[in-house]
């Protein structure tokens, strides 16, 4: 219950998916199936016609499914069901990280969208190298930051200064997970920007 454990918990929960959407969708599908079975039982007990098939007929069909269905259809259907199951298992086991980074802060949990980080890095690069915003593009991933610079055609670009400035900006973020910075300067210069 300490302060820092609360911060860690918030940071973790804010950067990982809660699987709420998958859970609600799965539960809704199961619920519909169950309500359909319940309706079928009630209709049968009250002597009414079933919706599509009655639960008893459904059970009988499942029991004889392997005899009454084309083998190819059985295989195909089985594979589809197994893939759906695999998706659920992967949802349950994979990390589910969101495109966000945690910034170290002693007082509060701080979580920033990767897009915001990328925009800030791009702006720093543009200002240092005196480029138009369109000449720099930045992608921030979980472990890497890729900066691509299109220098103005015919003008010399101070690569060292650019790299230093971008490096300082990324270090200044104080990201909790260290990232590898790659600055690529394209051979082709941009004309008319």
């Amino acid at each position: 219950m300490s302060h820092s454990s609360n911060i860690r918990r918030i940071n973790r929960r804010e950067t990982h998916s809660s699987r709420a959407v998958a859970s609600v969708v799965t539960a809704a599908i199961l619920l519909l199936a169950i309500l359909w079975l319940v309706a079928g039982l009630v209709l049968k007990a009250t002597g009414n016609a079933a919706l599509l098939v009655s639960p008893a007929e459904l059970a009988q069909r499942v029991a004889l499914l392997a005899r009454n269905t084309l083998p190819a259809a059985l295989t195909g259907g089985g594979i589809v069901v197994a893939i759906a199951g695999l998706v659920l298992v992967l949802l349950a086991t994979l990390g589910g990280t969101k495109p966000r980074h945690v910034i170290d802060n002693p007082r509060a949990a701080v979580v920033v969208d990767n897009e915001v980080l990328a925009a800030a890095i791009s702006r720093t690069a543009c200002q240092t190298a005196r480029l138009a915003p369109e000449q720099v593009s930045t992608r921030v991933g979980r472990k890497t930051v890729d900066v691509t610079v299109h220098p103005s055609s015919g003008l010399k670009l101070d690569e060292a200064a650019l790299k230093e400035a971008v490096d300082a900006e990324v270090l200044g973020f104080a990201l909790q997970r260290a990232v590898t910075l790659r600055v690529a300067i394209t051979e082709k210069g941009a004309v008319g920007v």
Partner: protein
Amino acid sequence: MTTTNRALNRAVLGVLGVALIIAGALTAAAGFSADVANDWTRIGTQAWAWTQQQLGSARIPNTSTSWWTVAVFGVLLVAAFLLVCWIMSQGGGRTNHVGRHEESDGTTTVESGLAAQAIKDALSGNEQVLSTAVQAWRIRGTDGLKISVQARKGASPRDVTLTIAELVAGLDALLGEQVPVLIRIKAGARTRFARTERVD
């Protein structure tokens, strides 16, 4: 910052996934191999005959319905109730206060609206911040504050963090305690459409 039970979500999804994989693999195997298909039909026929027998032996007097059908009906209703509970357990945990102190002569509660208004006012003149939202959430028995801001395109996350951290320090002094705080710096629709601030 919701109180969603994430372990439960993953556990239930995993169990359902494994069940689907087993059912799917069995069905696919029945398509491949005649042996599996024959076994399926044999066991299925036996199970169906046994079920018919059980249904017939526990008939409710004067009706064509069996007690077993009633039992299945009950089990299905319980399962439906549990599924509804699972859906309802998603999200949740919002509150409207950020501090609660019980003393011998009464209880003091601080409405989250107070903190929200103070933080929004302080950030309203900030060029780097396009919009601010402040909410209070339950976290492990205490109240936490979530401050979400939409940053202007190109705004330095460090500067925004420092600005908000200063506000949080002021809030600590005001409340007399350190409530858990989450600062979320987001990009959103307004980030994309608003002009870039080129001058610091």
